[in-house]
């Protein structure tokens, strides 16, 4: 067995002192912020860029998520955005010259009632027309693809079928943060850690600088990428966002011999699980209902998650939960992100990814870099504007959640 740390290179990034101003200041050094900076430098020739991070790079949701990567979203706008992101994922290891352990092992989404089946079939058909790989699996196919799933008809909510996106999978979140930070740093981007933004300076209705724990930093344009704290940071410029912040919990088991080789999600039974490269089971739980920035949630959510997991995977019964944790997810009214301009000139926002942020990081950074470089949205993020909440042109990814007859 080789040492697991050998994957990481000898050098990652510089720790420069902040300049007095930058062409673009990005607030938030998570996956979205780092990719935005990277693509600004790489694709738009703008490397006079600072990424300001309150704590340590990736210390928010980037390293707290369960790393499920997929693009099988229902609506055209979402599918286009996430598919663009997935295509970028497929080239990242090479592009960043870093093994981010992106593993396209397939993402199963189980259906447990007739409503789920309709929704799944609908999504598969829409995905295929959008050029997103998608398959509908009947029960036998599910059993063949993932023999570990309990398909007994005796289950409280028996599995009736599943959608499968074979190109979906998982990656190593730490490695992704290291990889893109290294690449951005190498292109001259300043990664400034322990630098908390405490204010946004406006001049004649235009955002011109940020106040930080390390002094004032001028900015040609400011891009907010502070998932979990989007509302707090935007409020510094007087900008209100239709965002609510909630805890989202996840957990991990000890390292186990291989027991699961795909990603399994079940909305009806509330499970999503994969087995990471080192061998630990990684599972996501439900969102806690109340607003919170505390990065912790309720224990009962974990217990319910375990009961649900054992319904589907009795074989996990003796595995141990090693660690639970929570991130802060920004939830928007239509469960879709907001990427684009704000009412304040020079200030842009990228938030509201809810539970879907990690998989979107390259795509999100790509379109946001375009937006920050040109002042205009890219075609892919144009629909994800703040204005949609006024016009009503939502991109409602909640789906047909209601069970009704």
């Amino acid at each position, binding site marked *: 067995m080789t040492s697991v740390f050998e994957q990481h290179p000898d050098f990652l990034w510089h720790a420069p002192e902040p300049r007095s101003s930058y062409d673009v200041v990005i607030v938030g050094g998570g996956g979205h912020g780092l990719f935005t900076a990277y693509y600004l430098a790489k694709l738009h020739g703008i490397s006079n860029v600072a990424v300001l991070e309150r704590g340590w790079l990736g210390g928010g949701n980037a390293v707290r998520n369960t790393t499920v990567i997929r693009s099988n979203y229902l609506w055209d706008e979402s599918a286009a955005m996430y598919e663009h992101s997935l295509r970028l994922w497929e080239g990242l290891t090479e592009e960043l010259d870093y093994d981010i352990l992106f593993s396209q092992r397939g993402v199963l989404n189980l259906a447990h009632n007739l409503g789920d089946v309709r929704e799944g079939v609908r999504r598969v058909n829409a995905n295929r027309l959008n050029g997103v790989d998608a398959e509908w699996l009947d029960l036998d196919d599910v059993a063949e693809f993932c023999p570990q799933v309990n398909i007994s008809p005796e289950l409280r909510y028996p599995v009736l079928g599943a959608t499968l996106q074979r190109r979906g999978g998982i990656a190593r979140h730490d490695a992704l943060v290291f990889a893109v930070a290294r690449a951005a740093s190498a292109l001259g981007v300043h990664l400034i850690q322990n630098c908390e933004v405490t204010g946004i300076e406006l001049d004649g209705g235009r955002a011109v600088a940020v106040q930080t724990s390390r002094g004032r930093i001028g900015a040609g344009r400011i891009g907010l990428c502070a998932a979990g704290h989007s509302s707090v940071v935007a409020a510094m410029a007087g900008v209100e966002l239709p965002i609510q912040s909630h805890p989202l919990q996840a957990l991990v088991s000890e390292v186990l011999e291989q027991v699961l080789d795909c990603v399994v999600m079940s909305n009806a039974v509330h499970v999503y699980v994969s087995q990471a490269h080192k061998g630990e089971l990684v599972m996501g739980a439900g969102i806690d*209902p109340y607003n919170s920035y505390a990065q912790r949630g309720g224990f009962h959510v974990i217990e319910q998650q375990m009961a649900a997991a054992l319904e589907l995977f009795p074989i996990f019964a003796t595995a141990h939960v090693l660690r639970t944790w929570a991130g802060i997810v920004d939830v928007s009214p239509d469960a879709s992100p907001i990427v684009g301009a704000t009412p304040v000139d020079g200030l842009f926002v990228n938030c509201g990814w809810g539970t879907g942020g990690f998989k979107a990081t390259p795509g999100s950074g790509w379109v946001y870099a375009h937006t920050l470089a040109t002042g205009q949205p890219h075609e892919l993020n144009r629909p994800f504007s703040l204005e949609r909440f006024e016009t009503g042109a939502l991109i409602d990814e909640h789906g047909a959640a209601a069970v009704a007859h």
Partner: protein
Amino acid sequence: MLLIPCPWCGPRDEVEFRYGGQAHVAYPADPEAIDDREWSRFVFYRDNPKGRFAERWTHQHGCRRWFNLVRDTATHQIAGSYALGEEPPA
């Protein structure tokens, strides 16, 4: 598992309650008289502060009453509950 002080039933586990988001958001007096922007504020925008937050809860599986609560969203410390229509405690 928060312990929510229902004004009627006393402290009970969070799972007996349903969250109702920001308190003191009045339904527009005449929705037809306001523009799309203003209407969208009512439908989609709620405060999301880090810190003290006046919010609504209902004791869904208890006495079914709605009430207000002041809670710190950074620490989950609850300052207290109070009736709908009352001002939050200082």
